[in-house]
Every structure is written in structure tokens, then in C-alpha cells.
């Protein structure tokens, strides 16, 4: 009884059989369809091979970049804490780390001969030796006690360096030395060369960053340095102070 077919509506049956009639003259193209199926398979595999590593890379990057960017935007101090936990220190190096010779330059931002060295000697040294891979420069802080704003200036330069602006900041600090050395207002002198967001971060970082300066001072003491600028040439592990006025000619004579 269950499977006995009950009376159906003949008009509906007619509509469905008459107007949805099978297409007797048509044979579907089986080989084309099979090729299409395998093509989809290959495309899917290709998408997986490309998409999965790409998505993984992007996700991992986002995991690190987004929180950092947000933290820095919302709370520069929190961002700065992160920098201090994992300080970036190589910003004070210039040139190839595999160069045969290294010169450590001990600077005081408030000392006029240092400003003259930075403006006149350093560019020539950079062009002739650093860019050609012959020399690596390392900038070190040596604020002299009698220069009341020298340590603060070093802090500003180092803080800017942690955000990739060391050279720009150091150059500007030396260039405006005569202005800020009277008031100690270094930040307003940096405003033209640092983007506002970076300046805000530098401002937050500058009060907290003394460790690098103290380390450089300890090294200067170890090398018995008494004046700025002082240049120490390091070749094959041997350290030697370049005596005299640190003119380009004097330095070159040691680099031959």
C-alpha cells in the first residue's frame, strides 16, 4: 500500500514532460568536461600552493606589525618600552661590517670642533672610504661634563636613531649647535627634520635612554680619551688613537 502510486494531476505531468522534454539530438562533450574538471583541480592546487604560504606570511606579519603600530600610535611610551627591551643599536654604524678597517668616532654634540668635523671631514671620509667598502664608522657618545646640554643632545640623537633618523638628527643637532647650546631646547631644532609622529616618539624615549651613552663613556675611559672629537682606528683587533687635529689628511695617512 505504501508504494502504491496515487493518482496524479495529468496537466502537471503533461507540462513537465512536454515542455521539459529531453534533448535527444544532443550528446554532452564528455572529454571537454573531464578536461575542465581536471583544470579546476590544477587551479585549486595552484591557489593552495601560492595562497597558503602567502596568507601565512601576511598573518604572521600582521600579528607583529598591527599590534606594534597600534601601540605606538596610541601610547608612544609603551612603544618606547618595547624599544628599550630590544634596543636597536646598529644605527650608529655606517658602512659595511666586513670592511677591513673600523674607525670609532667619539663625539660631543656641544663641542664646536666636533660640529666642524661632522660638517667638513665626515662627508669626504664617507664618500672616499665608507661607500667603497674600505671603512666602517662607529659613532660613539662622549659628552663632556662641562657641556651642560651635551648628554641631552646625545639622548636625542640616539632616540632618533632608534627610529631610523640618526644621521639626520645628528647632522641637525650639530648644525644648530650654537642655538640650542644656550637654552637646551634641542627638540624644537629637530622638528624640521623629523616627522611629527617620530618626534613624538623621540620625545617619549629621550628621558629613558642613558645606557648607550654610559657604555660609550666607559669605552672612552678605557681608551684614555680626553678630548673630542677622538678617532680610534681598529684594524685586526688592534686599537690605535689617531693623534692631532683629525684633519682629513691626517686620517688618510692612517688609512693607507
Amino acid at each position, binding site marked *: 500500500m*505504501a*508504494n*502504491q*502510486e*496515487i*493518482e*496524479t*494531476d*495529468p*496537466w*502537471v*505531468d*503533461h*507540462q*513537465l*514532460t*512536454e*515542455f*521539459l*522534454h*529531453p*534533448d535527444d539530438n*544532443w*550528446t*554532452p*562533450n*564528455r572529454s*571537454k*568536461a*573531464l578536461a*575542465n*574538471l581536471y583544470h*579546476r*583541480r590544477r587551479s585549486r592546487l595552484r591557489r593552495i600552493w601560492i595562497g597558503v604560504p602567502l596568507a601565512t606570511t601576511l598573518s604572521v606579519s600582521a600579528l607583529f606589525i598591527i599590534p606594534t603600530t597600534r601601540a605606538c600610535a596610541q601610547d608612544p611610551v609603551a612603544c618606547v618600552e618595547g624599544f628599550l627591551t630590544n634596543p636597536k643599536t646598529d644605527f650608529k654604524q655606517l658602512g659595511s661590517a666586513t670592511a677591513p678597517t673600523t674607525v670609532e668616532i667619539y663625539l660631543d654634540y656641544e663641542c664646536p670642533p666636533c660640529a666642524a668635523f661632522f660638517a667638513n671631514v665626515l662627508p669626504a671620509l664617507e664618500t672616499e672610504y665608507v661607500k667603497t667598502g674600505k671603512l666602517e664608522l662607529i659613532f660613539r657618545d662622549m659628552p663632556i661634563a662641562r657641556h651642560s646640554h651635551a648628554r641631552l643632545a646625545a639622548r636625542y640623537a640616539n632616540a632618533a636613531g632608534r627610529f631610523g633618523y640618526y644621521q639626520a638628527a645628528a647632522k641637525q643637532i650639530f648644525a644648530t649647535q650654537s642655538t640650542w647650546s644656550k637654552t637646551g631646547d634641542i627638540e624644537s631644532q629637530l622638528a624640521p627634520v623629523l616627522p611629527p609622529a617620530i618626534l613624538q616618539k623621540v620625545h617619549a624615549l629621550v628621558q629613558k635612554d642613558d645606557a648607550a651613552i654610559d657604555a660609550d663613556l666607559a669605552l672612552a675611559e678605557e681608551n684614555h680619551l680626553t678630548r673630542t672629537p677622538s678617532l680610534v682606528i681598529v684594524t685586526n683587533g688592534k686599537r690605535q688613537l689617531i693623534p692631532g687635529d683629525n684633519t682629513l689628511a691626517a686620517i688618510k695617512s692612517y688609512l693607507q
Partner: protein
Amino acid sequence: MRARGDDIEEAFQLHYERIACIIARVVGDRACAEELAVDVFWTFWHTPNAHGENAGGWLYRTAINRGLQELRRRARHVRFERFFRIGPGPPTPEQLHASSEEQTNVRGVLAAMKPREAELLLLRGNGLSYEEVASTLKLNPASVGTLIRRAQQTFRKEYTRLYGEPRNRD
């Protein structure tokens, strides 16, 4: 469990033509039917539960579903065009070949019906017995007759609502 390519190819060789013809009957467009048939086998490839003894039934049901989905998509498209007063594009050669007014009406009614009722009518219209319809749609065989009768009533009612009283009414 993932299907091997050999299993898929075997199912394809066995069922493809039938599946493509069923879809063509529903949508009235050969090229579209071939494309949708490939869709059906693509889904089959990624549905391990569909493999095995009931593969034929699964393919049959999915094919009809895809055909009905296509009809509903076209009906939506027509409504959209009417709403925004976009004139219909020129008919494709397939449409010119396949369509008559009454064919279009029947497809319009199927697109407007509940999917399960439309499936029942199409399976029945393809000559499947009550047992086969019940097995394909996983229904109680005892209730298939009643459900088909109810689906036919819906078809008639929808037809009248959309196109007026049937002219060749028995």
C-alpha cells in the same frame, strides 16, 4: 577521507552524460548544463560522504538542485532587470533554440516553488519510481505519493498566480 582521481573518473564516465542531460532538461541550455554538470562532479570530488553505493542518487539529486538553483538565479535576474528597468539583452542562440513561451512558464513556476517540491516533480518527471524518488531524496517511501500530489497542487497554484488560468487545462 579524500577521493582518489581514479574513483572520480570512474563515477564521471558512468554518470556524466545522464547528469548533463538532466540539467539541460531543467535549464534548457546545453552549454550551461555542461558547465553545471562539471560543477556537480567538482562538488562530488570534495564530498567524501557522497561516494560509495549511493553516488548515483547523490549526483542525481545534486544535478537537479543545481538546475533549480540556476532557474532561481535567472528569475532573480529578470526581477532585477524589471526593477531597474534594464532592457533584456539579445537572446543567445541556445535560448532561441530552446525556448518557447510555455517552456519559459514551466521553468518560471519551478523556480518559484519550494526547492524540495520542485525536486520531487522533476525526479518524478524523469521517470523515477516512488522508491527511487524516496531513496534519492532520503524520504519515507510511504509519503512520497502524498508529497508529489501536494507538489503538483503547488505547481498548478503557482502557474495560475504567475501566468493566469492554464489554457490547455485537463
